[in-house]
C-alpha cells in the first residue's frame, strides 16, 4: 500500500545537499498493535519541546493488530502543520510495505530501515541507514516477549541522533511518559540510548535533515481534537452524555469520562453527570433528546454511520424543538467506507438530516482550540435555539495530536436559553410553548417537574399549534413551519462568523473550513510565492452562513471552495443560499482519498483552474 498519495518516483540523480533545518517530515512505517505509538510520541514531543512547530498524523488501518500503519511527523519552522505530500525521512520497520514506502519517496530522502530488509537495493537516490534492530534489542531487553515493543524506542534513538536532536530533551519526554512506571522507564531509556549509540558509532550522516533548537512553541500545548472537545463539553456543563463506540469518535467520550470523573464529582462523591454507553446510535440520540427535553445539557459523539442512524430522531429534535449536541467526528464514507481515514463528507447530509423540510446548524472547528470553544458554543446554541446542533470535526483533527495555544477559561456564563420556571409562570399565568413571543422564532419552554399547574405541555413530532396542542390545520402547520424558518434565520445571527484574511485587493478568494485550514494557509503562501497569486481567505466556521460569507463572495471575482469530499458538499450548501451572480464566482477544489488534504494538492488545483 502507498504510504502517501505521491506516485512511485523515478530514479533521479541525488542533488547536492545542503543542511535542511526544521523543515521536513518523518514517516515511521510499522504495523499496528506493535506499540510504536509511544515511540512516535516521544519523537514528536521532543521536537516540539525543542521549540519547533510540529504536527503528527497517524495513518492506521481498520483492524487491531498486524496491518501497516504510518505515522508522520512534520517539523516546520514556517509553522505549517498540514500534511505534507512528500516524506523526507522514512523509518521503515514494516517488511510488508518497505519496498513501496521507499519507492514513493522523493529523491534525496533518508531511510532508516531494519537491516534484513535490504532496502538499499531498491533505489540509488536515497540515503540509507540500515539498523540491526533485532540485535540491538536483544542486548537491552532480556525478556524476549517485550522485544517487539521495545524495538520501537531504538528507532527513536537512531532518528534522534541522525537528526542531531537534543538527547536531554528526548530523555525528559521519556521520563514524562513513563513517570509512574519505573521498570518501563529504564527499559525504554536503555533502548533509546542503544539506538543513539548505534547511530553514532555505525552510521554516517549524509542526509541534510536536522533539528535545531528554536523558540517557536513556547507555552504551547499538544492535544488531540477529541480530547479538546471533551474538555469543552465538561466546561460547558454537560450533564448527560450518551454514546455508542465508533472510530474516530470514541475517544471524545472516553476522554470526557476521564475528565468528568476527575473534575465533576461532588465532595460527597456523587457525579454531576451521567454517561451512558447506549445500545446503538438510535438510542444514543434518543437519550440525548429525552435528556435535553427534561433540562439536561446533553450530547453524544459519533461518526458517519451513527449520523445515518440518527436521522429520524434528529428530525424529531428539529420539529419538536429539543436541544442536544451531536459531535460528528467525520470519517470516510459512504457506508463503512474507510473508517480510519479522514473526510469532510457529512456536511450536506447533516445540514438537512431527516425526512421532510429540516435544517440544522453546525459548527466546524479547524483547530483543537476551536474544538474546545465550539464545544461550549454548541451547548449554548442548542439551548438558545432549542434544536439539535452539530459539531463537525474529523478524524484528522480528532485523533491526531496538534499543538495549540493553551485554552482560555470561558469568559461568558452558560446560556441556557428561554426556560420559564414556576415563578415566572406564576407572573405570566400561562404560556404557549410554540408562540413566537420575541420574533426570533424561538418560543419559551418549561421543564418537566416545574411546580406550576400551567407548566406542562405536550411534546410531539406531529402537527401542533402555538399551545402545543395537536393540530392538523393547514394554517397551524404552515405557520409553525414558517416560524422554524425564522428560527433558522435567527441561528444565522448566533453562530460564529467566519475568519477572514483579506487584503482587499485580490480578485481571488478562497474558502476553506475545518482541517483544510492549515493546508489552505500553506497553499496561499505557495500561491503567493511560487505564482505571485495573492488570495483573500475566508474560513467558514458555521452553517447557516452569516452575512459576511455572502459579502466576501460577492467581493471577489473567483472564489475557490476547498473541501475534503467528492461532491463539493459545502459548495452545494452555498449554492442553495447564494444569488446566481455570486454562484457564478464559485470554483471547487476537492480532495477525497482519505488522506488529510495537503497544500500542494490545493495549489495545483487552483493553478490549473486559473489556467496557469
Amino acid at each position, binding site marked *: 500500500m502507498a504510504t502517501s498519495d505521491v506516485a512511485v518516483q523515478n530514479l533521479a540523480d541525488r542533488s547536492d545537499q545542503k543542511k535542511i533545518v526544521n523543515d521536513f517530515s518523518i514517516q515511521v512505517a510499522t504495523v499496528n498493535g506493535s506499540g510504536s505509538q509511544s515511540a512516535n510520541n516521544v519523537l514528536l514531543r521532543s521536537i516540539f519541546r525543542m521549540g519547533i512547530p510540529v504536527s503528527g498524523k497517524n495513518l492506521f488501518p481498520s483492524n487491531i493488530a498486524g496491518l501497516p500503519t504510518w505515522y508522520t511527523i512534520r517539523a516546520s519552522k514556517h509553522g505549517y502543520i498540514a500534511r505534507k505530500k512528500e516524506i523526507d525521512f522514512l523509518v521503515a520497520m514494516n517488511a510488508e510495505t518497505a519496498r513501496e514506502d521507499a519507492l514513493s519517496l522523493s529523491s534525496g530522502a533518508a531511510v532508516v530501515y531494519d537491516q534484513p530488509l535490504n532496502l538499499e537495493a531498491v533505489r540509488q537516490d536515497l540515503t540509507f541507514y540500515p539498523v540491526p534492530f533485532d540485535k540491538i534489542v536483544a542486548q537491552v531487553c532480556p525478556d524476549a516477549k517485550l522485544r517487539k515493543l521495545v524495538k520501537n524506542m531504538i528507532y527513536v534513538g537512531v532518528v534522534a541522533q541522525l537528526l542531531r536532536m537534543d538527547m536531554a530533551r528526548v530523555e525528559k519526554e521519556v521520563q514524562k511518559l513513563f513517570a509512574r512506571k519505573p521498570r518501563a522507564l529504564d527499559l525504554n531509556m536503555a533502548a533509546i540510548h542503544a539506538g543513539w549509540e548505534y547511530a553514532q558509532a555505525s552510521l554516517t550522516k549524509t542526509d541534510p535533515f536536522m533539528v535545531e533548537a528554536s523558540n517557536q512553541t513556547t507555552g504551547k500545548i499538544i492535544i488531540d481534537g477529541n480530547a479538546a472537545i471533551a474538555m469543552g463539553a465538561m466546561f460547558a456543563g454537560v450533564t448527560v452524555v450518551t454514546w455508542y463506540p465508533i472510530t474516530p469518535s470514541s475517544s471524545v467520550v472516553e476522554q470526557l469520562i476521564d475528565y468528568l470523573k476527575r473534575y465533576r464529582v461532588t465532595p460527597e*462523591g*456523587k457525579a454531576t453527570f451521567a454517561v451512558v454507553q447506549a445500545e446503538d446510535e438510535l438510542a444514543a440520540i*434518543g437519550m440525548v433528546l429525552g435528556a435535553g*427535553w427534561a*433540562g*439536561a445539557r446533553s450530547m453524544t459523539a459519533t461518526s458517519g454511520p451513527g449520523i445515518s442512524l440518527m436521522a429520524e430522531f434528529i428530525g424529531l429534535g428539529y420539529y419538536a424543538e429539543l436541544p442536544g449536541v451531536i459531535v460528528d467526528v467525520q470519517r470516510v464514507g459512504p457506508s463503512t467506507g474507510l473508517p480510519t481515514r479522514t473526510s469532510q463528507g457529512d456536511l450536506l447530509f447533516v445540514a438537512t438530516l431527516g425526512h421532510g423540510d429540516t435544517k440544522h446548524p453546525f459548527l466546524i472547528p479547524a483547530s483543537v482550540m476551536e474544538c474546545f470553544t465550539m464545544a461550549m458554543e454548541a451547548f449554548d446554541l442548542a439551548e438558545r435555539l432549542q434544536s439539535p446542533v452539530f459539531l463537525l470535526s474529523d478524524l484528522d483533527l480528532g485523533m491526531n495530536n496538534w499543538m495549540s495555544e493553551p485554552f482560555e477559561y470561558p469568559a461568558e456564563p452558560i446560556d441556557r436559553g428561554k426556560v420559564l420556571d414556576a415563578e415566572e409562570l406564576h407572573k405570566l399565568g400561562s404560556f404557549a410553548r410554540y408562540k413566537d413571543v420575541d420574533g426570533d422564532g424561538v418560543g419559551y419552554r418549561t421543564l418537566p417537574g416545574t411546580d406550576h399547574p400551567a407548566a406542562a405541555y*405536550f411534546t*410531539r413530532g406531529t402537527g401542533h399549534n402555538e399551545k402545543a396542542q395537536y393540530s392538523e390545520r393547514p394554517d397551524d402547520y404552515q405557520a409553525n413551519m414558517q416560524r422554524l424558518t425564522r428560527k433558522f434565520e435567527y441561528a444565522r445571527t448566533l453562530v460564529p462568523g467566519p475568519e477572514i484574511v483579506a487584503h482587499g485587493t485580490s480578485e481571488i478568494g478562497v474558502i476553506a473550513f475545518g482541517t483544510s485550514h492549515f493546508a489552505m494557509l500553506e497553499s496561499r503562501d505557495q500561491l503567493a510565492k511560487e505564482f505571485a497569486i495573492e488570495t483573500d481567505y475566508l474560513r467558514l466556521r458555521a452553517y447557516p452562513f452569516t452575512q459576511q460569507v455572502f459579502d466576501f463572495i460577492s467581493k471577489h471575482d473567483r472564489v475557490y471552495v476547498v473541501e475534503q469530499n467528492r461532491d463539493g458538499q459545502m459548495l452545494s450548501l452555498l449554492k442553495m443560499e447564494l444569488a446566481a451572480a455570486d454562484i457564478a464566482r464559485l470554483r471547487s477544489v476537492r480532495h477525497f482519498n482519505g488522506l488529510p488534504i495537503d497544500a500542494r494538492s490545493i495549489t495545483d488545483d487552483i493553478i490549473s483552474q486559473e489556467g496557469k
Partner: protein
Amino acid sequence: MATTPTSNPPSPPGPKTNRIGLTVIDYKGGKTTLCAGCGHNAISERIVDAMFDMGVQPERVMKLSGIGCSSKSPAYFMNRSHSFNSVHGRMPSVATGAVLANRTLTALAVSGDGDSVSIGIGQFVHLMRRNLPMIYIIENNGVYGLTKGQFSATADLGSKLKTGVINDLPPIDICALAIELGATFVGRSFSGDKKQLYNMIKASISHKGTVLLDVISPCVTFNDHEGSTKSYKYVKEHEEVLNEVGFVPFFEDISVDYDPGTTTSVSMHDGSQLRLRKLEHEYDTTDRVGSMKLLHDSAGRGEVLTGVFYVDTQKPSFVELLNIVDEPLGTLPQELTRPGREVLDKIMQGLT
C-alpha cells in the same frame, strides 16, 4: 376587614380531594380520540385513579410514549404532567435520557405492542437490562391499531386478520422476556380488570426500578383474531353489511372481576374468549427462574396469566449505578457543572 373569629365551618360538599388536596379533575387529560371501547381508554382511567388516590402531584410526573394509538393516550390523562410523544419504537431511549436529567420525577411510559415489541424490541431489551426507574405500560392488543390492524410480534399464533391473513409466527411473551432480561417488577393485567390493574399501577408507583406492566388491551376495531373457540360474533351476524374497514362500530368497554387463584374467561368484542388466570395471593414473586417457568407453562396451556410475577427490590436501579447526585442533573447550577478556572489551568499544565 371583618375579623370575627369563627369555628371551622363545615366545608361545603365539594369534589373529593386526595392527600395533596387535588381533585380527580386535576388528573384528567384531553378528550380521547381513540375508538369508543378501546382498551387503552380504560387503562388511562386506571392511571388517573391510581395517581389521584396515591396523591402523586401531577407536576412530578412525566409521561413518555412512542407512536401508536396506545402511545397517543398520554394526551388523554394527566394534562398537568409534561408529556413526550416521541418516535415509533424508540421511547425507551427518550425515557432514559429524561430520567437521567431528572431522577426526582416519576416517569410513566405508555407504549403499544407494535411500538415496544415489533420495531421497539431492541430498546426494550436494553431498557430492561438497565433497570431504569420508571413505570412502563404496554397496551397490548396484538396489532398495530393506528395503521389499521396489521399483526404485531405479540399476535397469537393462528390469529386471523379481517383481510384473512393468518399470523404464523409465535408471539413474544413480554413478561417472560422482561424477567429474563432483568426487569425488577413485572406483571400482566387486562384493561377490563379495573381492580387488578388499578392496584398494580398503585403498587408500581413506589417501586424503585423498572416496572413492566403488560396490559392486554383489546383493539375493538381491528382485533378479529380468532381466539380459542369463537369467531367475531358481531361480524358474523352482519358480515354482509360490513362492507368496508372504514366503519368502526361503537363498543362498550369490557370489564371483569374475579378472584386470585382462579381462571376466568372473558368474551372479547370479537366473540373470542380470553382465558385469564390470576395468580394466588401467596405466589412467591421473588423467584426469578420459577416465575419464568410458570409463564412458559401457562402459555403452553393457552392461558393468559395475570398478576405480578416478579419483584426484586434489591437490585440497584440505573440511576443508583450511575451514582448521580440527588438533585435533577438538568437544573444543577453552573457552580456545579462548570469546573473552576484552576481546573483548566491544571489540565493545561499537564499538556505542555
